[in-house]
């Protein structure tokens, strides 16, 4: 291995690539625009949608209850419910989202309460629909309060203390640090973006430096120079890795700036509102840097595989037809890491890409499982080394270099 030659090849490839608009686009412009774009769209749209749904006074219909004027009056007086006239097509109207929920009061409800006999109130809703869910919550809160009031009145009527049916209170309090909450919410998205951008950042340069050179006829020119093929492939590999990591680093910086700008724009009250709507943006900076470190061997793996696959192709078009479907292979495990309930364990720590997605989610949440980190880093380095060895092997095969 000749370091001078590797560096000479690397320097030339870097200069050449920086003069190529497509490489600069995939390496710098796309992550610079994409990250704040995704941040703005994903966070902005979802926060706005949730807040809007929360602020909306749900439209609710009451079925029955003509003989229960007390409950009906209490419902009508509730400021967070908008009651509409009873209609026969209520089911259809729930499906059409004209109604958020329907409350069905059984006949003789008021009288049953008076007598102390149990009665059942039904709530009809549209499962999975956010606004319908909020309406159900509002109705439940109202009915719980109404029930408590009834119980208290009965106890007082019998000269008993209200605490008789409430021997203790239950209060929930969050102990997770703010970054943990944020990490769970958008933290899953960050490694996903890093992984995808690392791959896409390497994709074009890898194709250009191999299949592109074959297509333009410069491969034979460089192969007839005295540079050893291993040095040549390592120089090219370093350039592709630079592109991939530049994309990841730019993504991190842009992400950090986007979050800082977002935090500054929202202010304390805005942040609290975002946090309560599940869009907390506080991330652990040390975790974010560790994510970047964990992504390094993945980038090596991607670059080596992309170089080897692209080298096999005779043209950029052919290389693109091999490399593009690989995005799916990257996205699937990366997305699996986003799924709720998929937790890191020793077995999953050996699955490439998925392991990084899972551990990164923990890292940005401020959780550091060092044994998993070591296992993931080590296994990914091993995969990357195998991929790089394969890439060097491909560069030494004349049937690949002069494939016709």
């Amino acid at each position, binding site marked *: 291995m000749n370091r001078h030659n590797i560096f000479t090849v690397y320097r030339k490839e870097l200069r050449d690539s920086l003069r*190529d608009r497509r490489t600069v686009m995939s390496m710098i412009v796309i992550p610079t625009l994409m990250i704040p774009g995704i941040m703005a769209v994903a966070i902005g749209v979802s926060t706005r949608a949730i807040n809007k749904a929360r602020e909306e006074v749900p439209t609710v219909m009451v079925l029955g209850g003509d003989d229960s004027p007390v409950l009906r009056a209490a419902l009508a007086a509730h400021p967070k419910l908008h009651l509409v006239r009873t209609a026969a097509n209520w089911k259809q109207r729930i499906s059409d989202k004209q109604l958020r929920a329907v409350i069905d009061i059984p006949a003789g409800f008021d009288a049953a309460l008076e007598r102390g006999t149990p009665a059942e109130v039904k709530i009809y809703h549209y499962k999975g629909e956010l606004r319908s869910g909020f309406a159900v919550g509002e109705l439940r809160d109202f009915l719980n309060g109404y029930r408590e009031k009834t119980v208290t009145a009965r106890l007082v009527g019998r000269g008993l203390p209200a605490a008789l049916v409430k021997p203790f209170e239950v209060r929930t309090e969050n102990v997770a640090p703010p970054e943990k909450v944020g990490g769970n919410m958008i933290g899953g998205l960050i490694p996903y973006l890093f992984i995808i951008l690392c791959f896409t950042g390497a994709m074009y340069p890898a194709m250009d430096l191999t299949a592109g050179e074959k297509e333009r006829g410069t491969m034979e020119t460089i192969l007839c120079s*005295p540079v050893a093929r291993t040095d040549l492939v390592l120089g090219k590999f370093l350039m592709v890795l630079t592109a991939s990591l530049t994309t990841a680093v730019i993504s991190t910086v842009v992400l950090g700036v986007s979050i800082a700008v977002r935090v500054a724009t929202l202010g304390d009250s805005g942040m609290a509102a975002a946090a309560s709507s599940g869009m907390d943006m506080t991330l652990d900076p040390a975790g974010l840097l560790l994510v970047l470190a964990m992504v390094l061997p993945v980038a090596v793996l991607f670059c080596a595989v992309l170089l080897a696959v692209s080298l096999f192709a005779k043209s950029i078009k052919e290389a693109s037809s091999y490399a593009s479907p690989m995005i799916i292979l990257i996205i699937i495990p990366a997305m699996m890491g986003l799924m709720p309930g998929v937790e890191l364990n020793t077995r999953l720590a050996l699955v490439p890409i998925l392991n990084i997605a899972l551990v990164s989610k923990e890292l940005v949440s401020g959780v550091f499982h060092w044994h998993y980190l070591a296992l993931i880093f080590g296994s990914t380095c091993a995969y990357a080394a195998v991929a790089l060895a394969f890439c060097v092997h491909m560069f030494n095969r004349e049937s690949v270099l002069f494939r016709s």
Partner: protein
Amino acid sequence: MIEARNLTKVFHDKKRGEIRAVDKVSFTCRPGQVYGLLGANGAGKTTTLRLLATLLQPTGGGARVAGFDIAAEPERVRASVGFLATSTALYGRLTARETITYFGRLNGLSDAALTERIARLADDLDLHEFLDRRVEKFSTGMKQKTSIARTLVHDPAVLIFDEPTIGLDVMTARNIVRFVRDCRARGKTVIYSTHVMSEVEKLCDMVGIIHHGRLVAEGTLAELGQRYGQQDMEEIFIRAVGADTEEAA
């Protein structure tokens, strides 16, 4: 000096089976001599030259180029060879100076030696006007001159030309021919493959006719003319190839 002995290259194709692209080819090319490798398309010229330039590994036989074995010392062979072909293109996004510098560095030239060498090549090949412009904007002639400079940057003892005039206009092709003559005059060992008969007549001291991967005839122009009873190179070629085809039949 180039000495090829029973040089053989066999490719394996899934559909066509075994293909003997170069079959026991032996020849010697001496310093100060232009050896013309003449053959039709697909005869095996490019494969022979790629073997000599160590781009491909021989299946059998061997060769010594500038005293180095092509199989055992490929990097030293490449350091002694300048290879120019229509398939050896230039990096469009680099300037002519950057291109020459790149190949000079890979050949182990120091910065000082490179500066001196580039100045010399720019004078010899009249590159000054476009030395710092990007290759992608060059005319064919400018590209060809830059390619020649790239080939000569390390002052190789052996020059291999694989159909270097294909697709070039008359003026650019003449420049190439003049450049090959200059190389011979400077005592370089030159091997020149072509299927253009007039170039062989103008340039080559020795001619090897290659057909179906085999060297079917070899000699000076005068010797070949005498052997086949013809003065015209095209006729000589047809006879040599025809005789081989008949023999094979």
